[in-house]
């Protein structure tokens, strides 16, 4: 087993100035918090956009208060124009997928906790790490700025299919500068995540503390490790794709624009390009991306459940094996987004099999979580509620995948609300519940104070029920053939579905409002919450062996030595506790368990 001494590399002394402490900080903990702040801001922006969308879908002629002032062009008199709806939708998807789901579980929590959980003092390249955040921030600014230029942001969706996204302004409002800004923002974001990967992977491989073998790494570390390898390969493909698309816009090239297109009466001067090429490049990134969004949450949920079940999972190795296989298979399934795209129908069959097969490791994971709950000592706290909620949502999102994985069924369900329901369950619900659970779980460690339990539980209950109310109806809409990315429903066969949309809108507004409880809890607890001890949840991994919040070099000059597997819970400790920390030299004496 690979055993390494971990000492800090070029280690910086604690910063003294405000700028060095909080703005341009090389401390991975500050960078993690910065990412968390970015993710938090982004999620509220993304949510706000979704409220506008849902209001418009439920009541198409509604004059939304304040919109006329915010965007006189996009919402004259407060009523969203068709193009503005699509622009809001594009920004909603882009912000949520990139700046919330990649940033929060991976960049934010990973940056803060990965070094601590492996027993390192910092990541190996703190300056590059700092750059990673600021580059991501710049990417967000570029994207957001598209709201403020001439005809607004791109309207081609977060998927930006060619040629809509590459022929320029003639294809619609926002498709000129707005689209170029979108492409630039995403290309810059890719760079930021690659810079992050340059730190994450070496931290895990090279900087583990003495005694921290691979098989003693917490599941969250494994999750971040698998995620960073996926991010490495996926973002490295999206970036050149975006650059080629930008060239189609500004340099007159024809990577993605075929010949003889006549858009709005004008013959487009490009020729010979392939629109399917964009789809292949995009989805080669896009599918691993959604696993990048969920795998960290799988690790976080495992960590939380173990802590609050007071016992390890049925098998540590199997969980890792599942996460690894999911990461590996995720590259083979991307064509399931393209079943009816016009690619060779044989390819569709080929892609459908790995898509179906990836259900197996996902199911094993769910069964292991469920099986580990059996005869555990489950404690109900806010983090554990969110972890349990995650399982419920992951099951729901997962089973709808069965439909979409089969090409002939996809004929009926492709581009309908069924797909929207599926991915919101796995991403907007399951992955977000992982993030929320992680926030409640790790808040005491990050900020030195406890979050309010009662408000947290209220937040959970209202969000859990509210979220199901928003997104479960989408499946019915999809089965009935309701097409997505429509700003209004004018087809005869879907007119009768409008009440369902309205129900979902009301649920969305309600659930959105509930998130203010969370925001209030975050802010109030940050300054006035009850002070946290080192290990309020009685957990075992290394972050709980240091103070809350950790000192500058994570362990206060101490170099932790790891003696145990990460989840020694449900055992009898000398001190009378039912757990032993990873860096405790005490020997493990297992409690007598039930025989079966």
């Amino acid at each position, binding site marked *: 087993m690979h055993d390494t001494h971990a000492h800090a590399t070029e280690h910086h002394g604690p910063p003294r100035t405000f700028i060095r402490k909080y703005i341009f900080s090389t401390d991975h903990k500050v960078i993690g918090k910065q990412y968390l702040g970015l993710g938090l801001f982004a999620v509220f922006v993304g949510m706000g956009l979704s409220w506008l969308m849902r209001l418009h879908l439920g009541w198409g002629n509604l004059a939304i208060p304040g919109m006329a002032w915010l965007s006189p062009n996009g919402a004259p008199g407060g009523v969203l124009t*068709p193009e503005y709806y699509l622009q809001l939708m594009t920004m909603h998807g882009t912000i949520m997928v990139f700046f919330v789901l990649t940033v929060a579980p991976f960049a934010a929590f990973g940056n803060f906790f990965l070094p601590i959980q492996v027993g390192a003092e910092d990541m190996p390249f703190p300056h590059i790490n700092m750059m990673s955040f600021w580059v991501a921030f710049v990417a967000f600014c570029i994207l957001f700025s598209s709201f403020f230029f001439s005809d607004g942001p791109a309207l081609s969706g977060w998927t930006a299919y060619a040629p809509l996204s590459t022929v320029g302004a003639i294809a619609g409002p926002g498709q000129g500068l707005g689209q170029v800004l979108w492409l630039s923002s995403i290309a810059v974001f890719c760079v930021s995540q690659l810079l992050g990967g340059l730190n994450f992977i070496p931290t895990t491989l090279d900087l583990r503390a003495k005694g921290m073998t691979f098989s003693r790494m917490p599941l969250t570390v494994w999750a971040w490790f698998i995620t960073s390898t996926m991010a490495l390969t996926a973002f490295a493909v999206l970036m050149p794709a975006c650059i080629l698309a930008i060239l189609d816009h500004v340099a007159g090239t024809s990577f993605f624009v075929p010949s003889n297109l006549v858009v709005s009466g004008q013959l487009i001067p490009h020729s010979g390009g392939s629109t399917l090429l964009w789809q292949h490049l995009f989805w080669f990134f896009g599918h691993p991306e959604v696993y990048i969004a969920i795998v960290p949450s799988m690790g976080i949920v495992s960590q939380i459940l173990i802590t609050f079940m007071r016992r390890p999972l*049925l098998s540590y190795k199997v969980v890792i094996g599942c996460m690894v296989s999911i990461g590996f298979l995720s590259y083979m399934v991307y064509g399931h987004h393209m079943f009816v795209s*016009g690619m060779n129908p044989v390819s569709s069959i080929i892609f459908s099999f790995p898509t179906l097969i990836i259900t197996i490791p996902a199911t094993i994971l769910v069964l292991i979580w469920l099986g580990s709950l059996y005869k555990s000592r489950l404690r109900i706290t806010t983090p554990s509620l969110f972890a349990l909620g995650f399982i419920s949502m992951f099951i729901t999102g997962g089973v709808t995948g069965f439909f979409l994985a089969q090409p*002939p069924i996809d004929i009926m369900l492709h581009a309908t609300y069924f797909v929207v329901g599926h991915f919101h369950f796995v991403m907007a619900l399951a992955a977000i519940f992982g993030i929320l659970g992680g926030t409640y779980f790790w808040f005491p460690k990050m900020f030195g104070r406890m979050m309010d339990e009662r408000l947290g539980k209220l937040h959970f209950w209202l969000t859990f029920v509210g979220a199901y109310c928003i997104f479960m109806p989408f499946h019915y809409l999809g089965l009935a053939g309701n097409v997505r990315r*429509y700003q209004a429903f004018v087809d005869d066969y879907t007119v009768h579905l409008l009440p369902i949309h309205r129900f979902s809108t009301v649920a969305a507004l309600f659930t959105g409002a509930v998130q203010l409880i969370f925001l209030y809890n975050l802010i109030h607890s940050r300054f006035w919450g009850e002070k946290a001890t080192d290990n309020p949840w009685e957990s075992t991994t290394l972050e709980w062996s240091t103070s809350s919040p950790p000192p500058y070099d994570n362990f206060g000059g101490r170099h932790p030595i790891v003696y145990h597997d990460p989840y020694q819970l449900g055992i009898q400790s000398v001190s009378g506790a039912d757990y032993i920390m990873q860096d405790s030299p005490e020997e493990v004496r297992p409690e007598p368990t039930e025989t079966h």
Partner: protein
Amino acid sequence: MAKLLAVTIVIIAALSAVPIVRHTWEPPTDVSKNGPAIDHQIDETMTEAGICFLAGQVVLAFMIWTAAGRGREHKIGWLPGGALGMVILAFLIVGTEVIVLGAVSSKVWAQAYFARLGAGAIPVEVQAEQFAFYFRYPGPDGIFGPIHPDLINDATENFYGLDPRDQASADDIVTAEMAIPVNREIQLIMHSRDLGHSFYVPALRIQQDFVPGLDLSVHFTADKIGRYEIVCTQLCGLGHYNMKAYLDVMSEPDYDAWLKKEAALQ
């Protein structure tokens, strides 16, 4: 609170299943030859996925109900079979489902995409553009005239850019609605004028994207007379939501009459 969560999960699961079981919201009735196979596949999958969904949520609820409130005095138990048991279970249940569903769905897909075009199939061309569908029939010569993008002129309704001097174009019939005879195989040639669009007729159980730069074709047979909607499902701009056309499935004599009438209007 754990018991409340368990109950809530079960209620949510049950309520979610109600509209499915009661078939409250269904797609338009199927009127195509391939449709029954697709519908059957959806039903099969719904049954299996539905069982997995309900079972998963109920087991989760059960585990929460029984595990919460167990304190130090209760011993930690290990599920019979352990992790290996879960792995085997997953492989057996899901693996079988996957293989069966995968195999059958491949067959259904092949029916739609690999079946050979019948000899008497009627060729119809559909052109997608921002934000309308136009259809073209080849006329008595059976040949579609060449498309000249530079001749496209919406004002004069030359949507396809046909050159009146081309002999093959002279008898082409361009329409805004699509009509086909019932029980006849149709070869639909799909051409996009500008961007990515898609051709979705829920009633026919057919959905296919247009690929700009590539003319691809699908074929189908409608087996019931009626008027059905064609909608665009690939985001193509601000008018995407409104991009639609009508498909009329008629009796053979009605279709011939319609075609004659349209030809006269060219």
